[in-house]
């Protein structure tokens, strides 16, 4: 583990520079840098400053509420939580999900991958890539992109819209829907929705291809930057289908080491706890997971598009598979480890999602067939899904009275905690060390964090400590809340 910039020895003597809030990401994070008098970076940390408490207050709720409650962890990827919780509850109920229900869930999920990847690339990250990391702050956003590259912005907005419409058609609402239930689904796809989506899907596949091309053009235009910025060695983890294919809805866990060698393979989702442990650090509400057999220093890993595209053996749709091969070739026998390659891998996955949706829309099982089955009720279940940002783990125990007695969540962004901190330190060392810090230089740090597409709300389901006295006064100056902590 790169811990050389994690904690400076003489912290009191150093000057603090803060990036707060980290912007154009989901959730609440900040970066602190400690610098010595020669402007050398001595410490760099990404702090997750938010707390939630979901894991605790889910306990005591009836199991059937859970898929609808937990999606409120995150408004960007609610479907991931909705489905991971449903999959865990399928296990609790011992219900083998019907063919129609699984296909409908897959459609919902790939709709979410499409919308989330489009959102992240076009709305959040593209300003850095199209204008430059040190470009004018006021223009460095989607409105600026719309003015300078109207067609790019339009396609981004419409790709996201299409993904959101897939979710609406399967979940009932674009955000925080109700379509998936423990044991199956509660609705089919309506014929009119199917027809409306089919009328658009060929455009979406085309525009997704164009997005992959755009990222490749950016890489070609500045290979020194794109191949080196925030480069780091890391293990990777994702679900992989039994035959080695990329599968974002279901599979078994596979780890590879930083050289690309398979370390662990075919671990069933129910056994995740035999692999992963979590470390707590006092300066972040987000935990630091690691592969138990390697320990915390060597066992941290990356998840998400960059991990998945290189962890699977192939992508089961032709256009995305051709792009995956080109991506792998780019590494010339080595795994691709550059931070900005996340964007390239993400757009390959967006193309895969568009192709998968196109194939699914031709399937009659979406329109009819059983949505729920019976099962042998148990008391525990794990649901794992590949969310847009990476592997998402939900684990519940449910009592005989149907109330949840234990809830453990390891969300995608949490897996990337150490990797993001390492990327921040790499970039700080390479680009900021010894220089007078400008807004544009500090944005380099955020560019590295953004590449991971962190979802910081998701990652902070725990509660934090209050070391001081705090009083909350209302608009009239009346104290409405007071907290004391030693």
């Amino acid at each position: 583990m790169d811990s050389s910039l994690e904690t400076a020895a003489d912290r009191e003597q150093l000057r603090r520079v803060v990036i707060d809030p980290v912007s154009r990401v989901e959730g609440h994070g900040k970066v602190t840098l400690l610098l010595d008098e020669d402007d050398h970076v001595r410490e760099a940390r990404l702090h997750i400053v938010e707390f939630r408490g979901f894991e605790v207050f889910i306990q005591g709720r009836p199991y059937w509420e859970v898929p609808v409650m937990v999606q409120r962890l995150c408004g960007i990827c609610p479907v991931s939580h909705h489905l991971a919780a449903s999959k865990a509850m399928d296990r609790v109920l011992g219900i083998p999900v019907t063919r129609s229900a699984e296909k409908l869930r897959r459609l919902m999920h790939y709709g979410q991958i499409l919308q989330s990847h489009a959102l992240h690339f076009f709305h959040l990250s593209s300003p850095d890539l199209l204008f430059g990391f040190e470009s004018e702050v006021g223009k460095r956003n989607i409105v600026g992109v719309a003015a300078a590259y109207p067609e790019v912005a339009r396609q981004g907005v419409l790709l996201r819209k299409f993904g959101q419409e897939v979710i609406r058609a399967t979940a009932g609402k674009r955000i925080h829907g109700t379509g998936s239930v423990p044991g199956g689904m509660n609705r089919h796809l309506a014929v009119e929705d199917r027809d409306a989506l089919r009328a658009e899907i060929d455009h979406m596949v085309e525009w997704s291809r164009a997005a992959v091309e755009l990222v490749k053009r950016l890489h070609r235009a500045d290979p020194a930057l794109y191949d080196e910025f925030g480069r780091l060695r890391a293990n990777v983890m994702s679900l992989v289908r039994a035959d080695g294919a990329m599968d974002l809805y279901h599979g078994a866990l596979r780890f590879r080491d930083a050289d690309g060698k398979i370390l662990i393979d075919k671990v069933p989702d129910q056994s995740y706890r035999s692999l992963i442990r979590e470390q707590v650090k006092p300066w972040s509400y987000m935990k630091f997971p690691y592969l138990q057999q390697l320990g915390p220093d060597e066992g941290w890993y990356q998840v998400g598009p960059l991990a998945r595209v290189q962890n699977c053996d192939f992508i089961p749709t032709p256009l995305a598979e051709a792009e995956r091969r080109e991506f792998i070739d780019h590494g010339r026998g080595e795994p691709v480890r550059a931070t900005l390659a996340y964007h390239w891998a993400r757009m390959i996955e967006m193309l895969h999602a568009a192709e998968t949706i196109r194939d699914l829309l031709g399937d009659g099982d979406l329109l009819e067939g059983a949505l729920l089955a019976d099962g042998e009720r148990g008391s525990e279940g794990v649901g794992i899904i590949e969310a847009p940002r990476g592997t998402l783990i939900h684990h519940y125990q449910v009592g005989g009275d149907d109330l949840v007695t234990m809830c453990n969540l390891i969300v995608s962004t949490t897996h990337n905690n150490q990797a993001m901190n390492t990327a921040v330190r790499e970039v700080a060392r390479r680009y900021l060390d010894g220089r007078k810090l400008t807004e544009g230089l500090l944005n380099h740090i955020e560019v590295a964090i953004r590449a991971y597409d962190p979802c910081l709300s998701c990652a902070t389901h725990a509660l934090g400590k209050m070391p001081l006295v705090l009083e909350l006064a209302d608009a009239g100056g009346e104290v409405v809340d007071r907290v004391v902590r030693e």
Partner: protein
Amino acid sequence: MSDSIGMPRVRVATTSLAGCFGCHMSFLDMDERLLELAKVVEFDRSPLTDIKHCGPCDIGLIEGGVCNAENVHVLREFRRNCKTLVAVGACAINGGLPAQRNHLDLGDCLQQVYVKRDGIEEGGVPDDPELPLLLDRVHPIHEVVRVDYFIPGCPPSGDAIWKFLTDLIGGRTPRLAHPLLRFD
């Protein structure tokens, strides 16, 4: 900054406090209309821009309730700077789902999650001064500042946000017709 006919643009700031960003996603669910909006609006502080502090604005949209000292600070910054402040969505209006923790003891929760849970190594409750102080309850934003408008929903739809903003920017009293006024 002005548009083509010389009218000053309406300056809008947005933030998410103790929320899930779902209301911001609904904002983006205005889809192509976003590009229309961008012709009459300019953005100040928002998760969509890199402006880190709110300056003088016409409209402030607040997602999420108030759960820590930083939320209080940001909310007051918005109130000071925004002529019209809007509570967007269930969490800003009544605390929403994060307020489910209000009946729990914070200390117990911390111990459960950071110390006692299976799979934790070197457990301990995070307590660095960089982490904002938590309130023991999640509060709706109107308990902390005066709020001018409330748009319900979890989240309100993109259509509702569009109707509200176009009314407000057009100088009309914002009115959400019955189908747009939803609480789910």
